[in-house]
């Protein structure tokens, strides 16, 4: 009897300890995550401009979003384009750089630092730098191209070149992924390469049958992370459009007119959400957009979490 009570008291103390340690996250999760999710679902069924109280409109926001609003499709298409082009290119270039670094005999530290530095540059600063470097009239890139007799494109001023310019910016900042890949490549046991070599595998076959299968979880992880980041791509698009359009029109006010510049070619889904929610203050409509984004990213996230055992090592080794 006495012992059971003591045990119960110990269990209660233990539970209290867990509760105490977890409390920041419990509060944080419910206030800054659970509440807004529920509220977002509610607001998405209302017309709400922040001034007058919400007015119930049922599914009208969703109907307008998916069937009427022409910008939705533009934004979805741009976002898919960015993810489809940027993510594979980032994985490929990071992998290529990591392979070259893993093979190098000297200067690894210097090269690694050089490839990593751009990833550190604040996104706003990096974007501003690229808009200047690629500025069509006097930018260094087009100046050099014209010395070579090439007529450079208009880059951020041209609807068909704006996204590729952003992709270049994205590849420049690939350093984080490269460091992770390099660690993974260096972690592949040497013995695997040696036995492959004994079996007569050439360098390409060793890459195909030893390196890639050994680090595939890391490659996959980077790709999925790239998709997640692609879904929230905002800063670079916002800054590039703002600065490039300000340059074209010399207008003082850049925010509202410039989103998506030029001709909606950089209007990504988060940019459109920003416009509806925080430029036009259509909170109900923006909530409907947020719910759709939630559904898409939840599916992607679930796919990762379900497969996470493959790359998240759990328990002490």
């Amino acid at each position, binding site marked *: 009897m006495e012992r059971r009570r003591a045990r119960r008291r110990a269990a209660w103390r233990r539970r209290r*300890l*867990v509760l105490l*340690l*977890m409390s*920041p*996250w419990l*509060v944080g*999760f419910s206030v*800054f995550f659970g*509440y*807004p999710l529920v*509220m*977002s679902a509610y*607001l998405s069924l209302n017309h709400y401009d*922040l001034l007058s109280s919400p007015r119930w409109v049922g599914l009208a926001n969703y109907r307008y979003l998916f069937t009427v609003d022409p910008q939705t499709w533009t934004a979805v298409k741009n976002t898919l384009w960015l993810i489809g082009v940027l993510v594979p290119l980032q994985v490929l270039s990071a992998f290529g*750089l990591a392979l*070259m*670094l893993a093979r190098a005999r000297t*200067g690894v530290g210097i*090269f690694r*630092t*050089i490839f*990593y530095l*751009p990833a*550190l540059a*604040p996104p*706003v*600063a990096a974007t*501003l*730098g690229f808009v*200047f*470097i690629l*500025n069509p009239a*006097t930018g*260094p890139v087009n100046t050099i191209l*014209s010395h070579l007799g090439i007529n450079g494109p208009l880059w951020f001023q041209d609807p068909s070149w704006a996204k590729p310019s952003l992709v270049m910016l994205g590849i*420049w900042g690939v350093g984080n992924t490269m*460091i*992770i890949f390099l*660690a*993974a490549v260096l972690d592949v046991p040497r013995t695997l390469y040696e036995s492959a070599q004994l079996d007569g595998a050439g360098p390409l076959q060793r890459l195909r049958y030893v390196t890639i299968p050994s680090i595939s979880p890391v490659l996959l992880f980077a790709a999925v992370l790239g998709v*997640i980041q692609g879904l*929230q791509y*905002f*800063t670079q698009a916002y800054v590039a459009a703002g600065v490039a359009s300000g340059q074209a029109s*010399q207008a003082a006010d*850049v*925010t509202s007119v410039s989103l998506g510049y030029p001709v909606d070619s950089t209007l990504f889904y*988060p940019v459109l959400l*920003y416009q509806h*929610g925080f430029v036009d203050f259509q909170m109900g409509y*923006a909530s409907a957009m*947020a719910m759709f*984004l939630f559904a898409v*990213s939840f599916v992607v996230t679930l796919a990762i979490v379900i497969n*996470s055992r*493959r*790359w998240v090592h*759990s328990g*002490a080794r």
Partner: protein
Amino acid sequence: MSTADVAVPFVRRRPPARVRRKRLLVSVANHSMLIAASIAFLAPFAFIAVTALMTNDQALSANLWPHPFAWHNFVDVFTKAPLWRWTFNTFEYASLATLGVVVSSVPVAYALARLRWRGRNLAFIVVLIALMLPPQVTVVPLYVAWAKFHPFGFNFIGTLWPVIIPNWFGDAFSIFLLRQFFLTIPEEYMDAARVDGCGEVRILLTVVSRLAKPAIAAVALFSFLYTFNDFFLPLLYSGESPHHWVLSIGLSEFRSLHQVQWNLTMAATLLVMAPVIVLFFLAQRAFVEGVTLTGVKG
């Protein structure tokens, strides 16, 4: 396994000349590609730096090299824009947020990694989901809530507090990173402390936090970087009041604010990049270890 680890005396034979020549060629090719890539990665920095030192007329011409060097650009940017104010706001946001992230995330990560309780795995999965979801998903109702919340008549919209405060309630990424590290600490350390009569809270404060110093340093570093670079949320809440802008917002509006020229814009860009790059060289090891820690092994 143990026999393979024993160092066997092994005389390396000199490979034949043909093999040596091939290896040298491969190495030369590899290094030339590395050098080419390095030039491509460094060029944007070089263009920015060179333009930051040009006069305005030069920046608008096709010249690629400054003549004369306009060092005063770096002084002029401070008079053209309230750069000190933005810097102060940025460091205020970054340091308060970083402090909050560390203080609130360490205990949560410890409970997730080292204590056994029902629902622990579910709680960890919830952390992972929170880590992955875009901030845009929750931002609309949060903005509405901050806009409607006026304790003692204080208006949160137009300040940085709505961006700082959530950091004091655990950050998913930091919890994840710290948990991964806590898992690697051998149980024997904790057991030894327990035998000596240490409670779990004291174990966390003394044993674990001391052993986990590199991970805590990495979390603080990443949190500082994240907040220093943060743009979306500060723009949302303080976009309308320039007095509360952080550097990233100020920089994005720099060119349009006073019709400022490219040379000054690039000087400001360079100044905003500088703290991060200096920080990197001061704490290079913590960086690389931290990044590798996030890339978790299979």
